[in-house]
């Protein structure tokens, strides 16, 4: 039984660029309307977009998606993979009818349920019971169906004794549980999941994944956008790769993930802010560069062997004399899991950093942090850098400024050849066995 469930015909989406236009003013609209009356050609003709990247931006417009052709059969679980800004979320929003495409036509069979963000539509003043009905209705469930499943939803959320309490008095965990319970009992023909897998706790993520595969088994169509590539590989039978608003590949997940990762590898382990205006800065401090290198060479590299010490170097300019600085880094992995946070404070350091919290003269400084060898697992990690006068106070920050990959060379796994997928870190620890 293969029935087409989703069909996209040359779908393109164009957005207006620029913060000024975010909330247009009425006077502007009238003025431009009058202008276009006199210049007929001023009406921006929906031009056929070209394939090169620079054409993605034209005359203040940005092509988020271009000429997407896609057909999905019911029962398929399809992963959508791509970098940030590749158009994944826009594609899902178009499928969910939230956003109208600029060109092309979208066809969807049946009810679309989206877990774009769990709990949208909850009203804090309403009680749990009232919110279940409201939220269910917003998600597209008929009232009779909600009534039928009400007990099931409440049991699933484990909140029975708080049913008549306004949601504003709920703990955030309870609110999320209730919201998910409603969403999980909605039985859409097409389910859309976006990044839900990376928010919430582990158990919650498992529930989401379980729900998705269960729906797929029932012959419903599921679309997943996730940075959790392992989940995509596990869950989906098919994946598509988006790059710069174009659909570049459509294949089995393994091959798509390989292609995606090889694209991600482009980069040289260093990020330099040449331009003073674009560099993250405050009045006293300006970030200059961030680089990653293995201890065997001085050159920045975005791939480091697992048995190598990793050096993360932050260079920053102090613009005002007597500024006190503390440098901090955050490391997250591909799935968004927060691996560690570290600062150059004495108690967090192997040896005290002489410049920590000292008044810095004007000049350029370089702080290096050494991550021990045989500590991180073989995966991709993202480094955020934060600088502030004290630990915990941030005046300059750049999130996910750089990424690097730890390579498994086999040096620390000579006795084991299986998969090491899952753990975030892979430290070499002290083991001893004695007869007792």
């Amino acid at each position, binding site marked *: 039984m293969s029935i087409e469930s989703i069909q996209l015909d040359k779908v393109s989406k164009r*957005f207006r660029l620029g913060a000024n236009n975010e*909330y247009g003013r009425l006077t502007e609209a009238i003025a431009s309307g009058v202008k276009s009356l006199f210049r007929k050609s001023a009406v921006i003709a929906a031009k056929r977009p070209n394939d090169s990247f620079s054409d993605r931006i034209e005359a203040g417009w940005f092509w988020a998606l271009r000429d997407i052709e896609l057909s999905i059969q019911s029962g398929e679980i399809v992963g959508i993979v791509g970098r940030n800004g590749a158009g994944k979320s826009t594609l899902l929003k178009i499928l969910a009818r939230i956003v109208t495409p600029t060109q092309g036509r979208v066809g969807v069979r049946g009810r679309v349920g989206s877990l774009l963000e769990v709990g949208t539509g909850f009203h804090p003043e309403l009680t749990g019971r*009232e919110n279940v009905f409201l939220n269910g*209705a*917003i998600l597209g469930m008929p009232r009779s169906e909600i009534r039928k499943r009400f007990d099931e939803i409440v049991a699933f959320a484990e909140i029975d004794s708080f049913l008549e309490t306004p949601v504003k008095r709920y703990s955030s965990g309870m609110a999320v549980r209730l919201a998910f319970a409603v969403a999980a009992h909605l039985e859409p023909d097409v389910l859309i999941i976006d990044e839900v897998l990376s928010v919430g706790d582990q158990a919650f993520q498992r529930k989401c994944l379980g729900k998705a595969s269960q729906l797929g088994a029932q012959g419903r169509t599921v679309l997943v956008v996730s940075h959790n590539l392992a989940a995509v590989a596990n869950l989906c039978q098919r994946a598509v790769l988006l790059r710069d608003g174009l659909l570049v590949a459509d294949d089995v997940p393994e091959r798509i993930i390989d292609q995606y990762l090889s694209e991600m590898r482009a980069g040289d382990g260093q990020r330099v802010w040449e331009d003073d205006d674009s560099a993250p800065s405050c009045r006293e401090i300006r970030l200059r560069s961030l680089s990653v290198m293995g201890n065997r060479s001085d050159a920045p590299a975005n791939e480091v062997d697992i048995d190598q010490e990793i050096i993360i170097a932050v260079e920053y300019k102090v613009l005002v004399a007597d500024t006190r600085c503390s440098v901090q880094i955050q490391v997250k992995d591909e799935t968004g899991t927060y691996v560690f946070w570290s600062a150059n404070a004495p108690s967090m350091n192997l040896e005290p950093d002489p410049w920590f919290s000292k008044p810095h003269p004007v000049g350029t400084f370089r702080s290096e942090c050494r991550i021990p060898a045989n500590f991180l697992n073989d995966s991709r990690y993202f480094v955020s850098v934060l600088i502030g006068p004290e630990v915990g106070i941030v005046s300059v920050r750049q999130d996910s400024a750089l990424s690097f990959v730890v390579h498994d060379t086999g040096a620390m796994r000579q006795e084991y050849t299986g998969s090491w997928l899952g753990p975030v870190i892979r430290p070499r620890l002290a083991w001893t066995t004695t007869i007792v």
Partner: protein
Amino acid sequence: MANQQDSIPPMQFYGPTDRFGFGQLAEIWRTRELLYSFFLRDLLIRYRQVIVGVLWVLLQPLMGMLIFMGLFFVLGTNAGSSTVAFAPIILTGMLCWQLVASSFRDATGSLVNYRHVVTKIYFPRMLLPLASLMCAVFDFSIGSVLMLPVCVYTGTSIVWSTAWLAIPIALWLVLFCAGCIAWLSALNAHYRDVGYALPFVLQLGMFVSPVVYDVERLRNLLTDRWVWLYEANPIATCIGLLRWSLFGTQLPSLLGMAVAAMMTCFICVSGLAWFQHADQQLADRI
């Protein structure tokens, strides 16, 4: 197998379109349960954490009536009709005006205040302003109950032969409000200026419409030549018609009523078309 074929929902297509259609209305009808949910939500939220509760629905028009009666008493002006007591005249005006003002006010902000949902889930967006309108209609219906005690107290006799016409006339006013809020809510989503300008427009509108006075008082000033222009405002015509149907005051001019009816049709149809057009960029622009 045949059964299975039936249970498969049809493919629904959508894309950019500026073609005006009544598909919008059909969709609202299909999702009327959600409309009811939104209405219930608005209603419940409004009277949470208030002591007097739903009594506010009665207090608001009553207070409005008393304030203006007091004002005109102090000023020594007679703003009412020559044949009917002032209190029921002003109460009719107040009830209608509160229908207009509260539906305009709530509906204008309805899309913007709910943008965290509008940008996440699809449903016919028209439901949000419509739910605000339903709340205002609910208040209007409850408030109308006040008419009986006020009439008894002031010794005003209701013209029962035409009183039933009050219902279609009120529906006319509701229809006009629906057209206006289609314009206002989507305009406000695109241009926030609307939300700021609205309070002033409402203040002005209250005096341009015969809310706290009877049209009779303006007849001499406007003369028969211009009174139709005044009555082209559907709010003025509806209030005038309501007073006529209930208390037998003077009927608005035929020309005025015709123009007001045309205005209403125009606003409704254009509002529907504008909303459909604006809806397509709503999630991007809101």
